């Protein structure tokens, strides 16, 4: 079998994985001391938030192939629930997080039920409606959400008497911890029978049901987990912004999350980080393009669709399948790209 460059690159990465992870950890943990401006740090935190959002949507869209355009709704539910609880009842940030994510998950269950009957574009349209309904509820339910005026001066999380903010890098480290936990959760979930069944459903639902998979329950489960993670991101986002209103959670946000998943590489975890970095940084970096900014943005997306339809990091691994109980090493041959097919 042919050893291609992808196999060589992957086996290099695999061989030096401890070194690479060590370097990544060192960079991530020491980043605040590199003398970066507050603006840059804030952008990096935003990348983290959107990486989390993309990881959440990826569970649903990248694995079970259910496309949602209403994730801004779950994002909003997480943000509003915790912000309201923290402001009105003075609960701790972590309690707010649990409540916000749980409520988002619950709404995921409610929205997941239509998946029993709908698929493809029909499902996507329902999720779009869901996002708008949540936005309208926020606008009109004034006693709780303060209506169109939005919620102002949302309290920052406090841990052991210290308030986390941008200056003491509390937000940064909280973001790192959350992204780490969410990514670990996704990694463990997807490399188990649950992840396999998600992918099987995404590829061929009828065949998956013929393997005895409870396809309906699994699809709803994907919805709930995806909404839960999106809710966590929302809970973190509210105090970071300090101010949220109905315009914070528009349809554009849903589109942005989906774009990150597609640009990074659907069905991969690595892609979510690169996708988020590119799509968050690009609008900031390209201000000199003025009015042409979104023309170039659109053009880049079209070019990517043409030349890398699987996303930037969306390749299939050429390394052998990691078989449990065997010593971890890369031996023998990689997997050839495509053999003859009739």
């Amino acid at each position: 079998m042919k050893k291609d460059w992808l196999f060589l690159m992957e086996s290099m990465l695999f061989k030096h994985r401890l070194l690479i992870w060590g370097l990544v950890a060192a960079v991530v943990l020491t980043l605040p001391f590199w003398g970066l401006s507050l603006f840059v740090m804030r952008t990096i935190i935003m990348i983290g938030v959107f990486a989390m959002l993309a990881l959440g949507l990826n569970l649903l869209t990248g694995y079970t192939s259910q496309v949602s355009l209403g994730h801004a709704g779950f994002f909003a539910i997480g943000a509003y629930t915790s912000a309201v609880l923290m402001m009105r009842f003075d609960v701790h940030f972590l309690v707010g997080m649990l409540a916000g994510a749980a409520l988002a998950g619950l709404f995921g269950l409610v929205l997941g039920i239509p998946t029993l009957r709908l698929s493809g574009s029909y499902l996507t349209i329902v999720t779009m409606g869901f996002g708008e309904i949540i936005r309208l509820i926020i606008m009109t339910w004034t006693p709780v959400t303060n209506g169109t005026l939005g919620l102002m001066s949302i309290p920052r999380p406090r841990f052991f008497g210290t308030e986390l903010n941008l200056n003491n890098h509390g937000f940064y480290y909280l973001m790192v911890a959350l992204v780490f936990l969410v990514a670990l959760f996704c990694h463990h979930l997807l490399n188990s029978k649950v992840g396999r069944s998600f992918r099987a459903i995404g590829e061929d639902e009828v065949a998956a049901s013929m393997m005895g998979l409870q396809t309906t329950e699994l699809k709803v489960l994907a919805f709930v987990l995806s909404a839960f993670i999106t809710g966590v991101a929302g809970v973190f986002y509210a105090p970071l912004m300090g101010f949220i209103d109905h315009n914070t959670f528009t349809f554009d946000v849903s589109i942005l999350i989906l774009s990150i998943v597609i640009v990074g590489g659907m069905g991969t975890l690595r892609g979510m980080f690169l996708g988020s970095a590119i799509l968050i940084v690009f609008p900031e970096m390209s201000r000199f393009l003025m009015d042409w900014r979104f023309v170039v943005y659109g053009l880049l997306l079209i070019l990517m669709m043409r030349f890398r339809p699987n996303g930037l990091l969306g390749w299939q691994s050429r390394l052998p399948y990691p078989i449990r109980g065997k010593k971890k090493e890369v031996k023998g041959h990689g997997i050839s790209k495509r053999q003859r097919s009739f």
Partner: protein
Amino acid sequence: MAYLSVKEVSKSFGGLTAVGGVSFEVEKGQVVSIIGPNGAGKTTIFNLLTGVYEIDSGTVTFDGKPIHNKPVQDIVGAGIARTFQNIRLFPKMRVLENVLVGMDRKMGYGLLSSVFRTPKFKKAEQEFTQRAIEILGSIGLGDEIHNYAENLPYGAKRKLEIARAMATGAKILLLDEPAAGMNPQESVELMDFISSLKNQGYTLILIEHDMSVVMKISDKIYVIDHGVKIAEGKPAEIANNEAVIRAYLGGSAKDVKSQ
């Protein structure tokens, strides 16, 4: 009582009767073939047996228990698994993963075990991965376990579908045109393979057009035409059955012989 017994099963789609009161029986360890011209309702029978469609009337009993109109998952759980006429693998998953999906039901660990990587998770994954490798080895795909299903050549894809069905713990395998698109040599290999499955104790029901395969390996053949059974019997009986020849060639046996 037969191992699998199908009694007077009917299915209509609107005004069209796809299957009209078909009955047949399969004994344990037999290879039974269902043949008939295109559009006769053979695949519909498979869809009725596996719960893809609900039946309008009649009963299907497997191992003494009625299984008709049960959810697909329950029928797989009872021990009936199938392959598809147009191969339906999970193309972007690895060969090994395709088989592991088939074992999903039996793995017996939950969401929390996966997330926290409990000993239960590790034990189940290790154990079932080994079993999947064994199944793939027995079917001649031992060298391909790491490959992606979409990269396999045609014949290997068919084999992988069978391996995946075996992985569900099925006792009866329903194979829908396993020899379709195979060259004569591949067909011969397939026949040997099906015989070996029989020797392993599997009961098999085939839909097949390749008569050289059907005549050699079947214990019993049922012939379906326009949704009704027109003949049943041993291969030799079917080969000389007038109704069958008429169904296939559109004339009487005498016409055929005189030509």
